[in-house]
């Protein structure tokens, strides 16, 4: 009989709630969103997701092999799957296949593994890839199919993989994009004149957002993450939108418009909650979320890009270590929290 000698604790619940479990829960939580997207924007979303997953797993395996790491062990943690899924949800449903390929490959190879892999990447890989695609291929990235006008499954498939000529007129900008390029019009005129801002379109977006919110609430109840980052982000975004729309309702969109269009909900519950790239403490996460919300509003309202979640998150990723330094919790028995790094001994 040989007795095992290891350090305490001897019990843990991570056998049931490991990293794999967390990732599975995240994937599960995206299901309502996927369904809503598919309902409104057609099969493109599902096809994109499947293709992105394949690419992601292949890239991950390839890099792990090059890094001489156990492939099975790392594939099982599911982080690549989540990355691919989030990216696929963020890009337009009818985006061509190579867009997905480039995005996912860049996310996995460069944004994740080049920085050391799981747990070491300072920037959210999905958002890095999204930003790359948005900057490199702005047209492809902003062409969304109008709700309920999506082609059939085979049509979509052919469209995505370039097997059939593109259907014109079926695509349009997202509401945010349309809103962005709406110079010299009051909001009312704009909403009436632009197809992307018709009430059906808006309803579709709102519905999708609500589906993400549902998934996020599920994750919160399963204690996959704490409320701090999403609430911080949504709160600050709402406050910003409220202040500005009160100031001039003709120019600045309403709170609900900001909350329920674009990637706001997806970002709040699936992007800023990515544990690796945010601040560490709960206080830090709250600050992180607030920062993201403020930046989203600023970029949306005053920047050049229609949607701002990716840039806001990336910018706050930069700031995360800094936030960490100044958001240490106060330890038991100490009057105040430590701030910053230890001073050099003299």
């Amino acid at each position, binding site marked *: 009989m040989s007795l095992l000698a290891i*350090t305490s604790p001897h019990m843990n619940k991570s056998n049931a709630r490991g990293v794999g479990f967390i990732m599975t829960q995240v994937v599960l939580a995206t299901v309502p969103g996927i369904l809503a997207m598919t309902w409104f924007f057609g099969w493109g979303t599902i096809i994109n997701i499947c293709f992105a997953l394949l690419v992601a797993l292949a890239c991950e395996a390839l890099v792990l092999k*090059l*890094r*001489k*790491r*156990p492939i099975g*062990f790392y594939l099982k943690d599911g982080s690549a799957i989540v990355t691919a899924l989030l990216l696929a949800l963020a890009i337009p449903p009818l985006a061509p296949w190579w867009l997905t390929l480039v995005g996912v490959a860049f996310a996995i190879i460069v944004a994740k*593994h*080049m*920085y*050391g*892999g799981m747990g*070491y990447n300072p920037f959210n890989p999905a958002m890095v890839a999204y930003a790359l695609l948005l900057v490199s291929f702005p047209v492809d990235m902003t062409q969304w199919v109008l709700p309920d006008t999506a082609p059939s499954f085979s049509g979509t498939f052919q469209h995505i993989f370039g097997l059939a000529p593109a259907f014109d007129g079926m695509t349009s900008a997202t509401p945010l994009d349309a809103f962005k390029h709406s110079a010299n019009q009051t909001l009312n005129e704009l909403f009436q004149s632009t197809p992307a801002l018709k009430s059906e379109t808006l309803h579709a977006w709102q519905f999708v957002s609500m589906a993400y919110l549902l998934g996020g609430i599920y994750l919160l109840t399963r204690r996959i993450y704490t409320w701090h980052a999403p609430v911080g982000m949504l709160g600050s975004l709402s406050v910003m939108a409220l202040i500005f729309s009160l100031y001039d309702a003709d120019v600045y969109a309403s709170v609900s418009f900001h909350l329920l269009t674009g990637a706001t909900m997806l970002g709040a519950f699936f992007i800023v909650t990515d544990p690796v790239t945010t601040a560490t403490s709960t206080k830090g996460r709250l600050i992180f979320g607030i920062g993201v919300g403020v930046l989203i509003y600023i970029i949306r309202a005053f920047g050049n890009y229609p949607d701002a979640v990716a840039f806001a998150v990336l910018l706050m990723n930069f700031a995360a270590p800094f936030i960490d330094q100044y958001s240490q919790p106060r330890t038991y028995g100490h009057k105040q929290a430590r701030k910053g790094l230890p001073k*050099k001994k*003299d």
Partner: protein
Amino acid sequence: MTLLTAILALVALALVFGAILGFASIRFKVEGNPIVDQIDSLLPQTQCGQCSYPGCKPYAEAIADGEKINKCPPGGENTIQALADLLGVEPEPLDAEHGEESVTKVAVIREDECIGCTKCIQACPVDAILGAAKQMHTVIASECTGCDLCVEPCPVDCIDMVPVAPTVQTWSWEQPSTTADSIAAKNDNLIITDKGRGAAA
């Protein structure tokens, strides 16, 4: 005329700022430890001379004069790291020419073989060996720095360097190995951050 004004203005500025700087350097002078003492306090003080200097202080002085920081085997990587931090230079691997890092040891005299020649007593830099001519010598273990210097002079080779065994009081848990560590130890690394994961994460 303009030229003259410019020159005068510049000279005036230079004087003013010079005065401010001079005042500041006197008024806000930082009374710090001299660098040699700081370096010396990081060295393990075994006085073993493996760095080819006759003691830790001389080596500290040499480091302050630009000597390499990787010549101290008793201090090992930790000392190199600490010195690198202090001096703001890149840590280098230990110079194998001066010996290898090993566990803390203590000298033990095999007492029936000791002939009482006092040679080890003279060699010991910290007076940790007790004895008199023609009498058996012994090492005061708590004072021994494990510097090795008494081994060579012994004419009958009766001094052993024994690793210090942990006691219940000094024992502590080992560092758990991580997956990345064990893999990185085996393979070359494709990505720069894979290197020395354990050392600098």
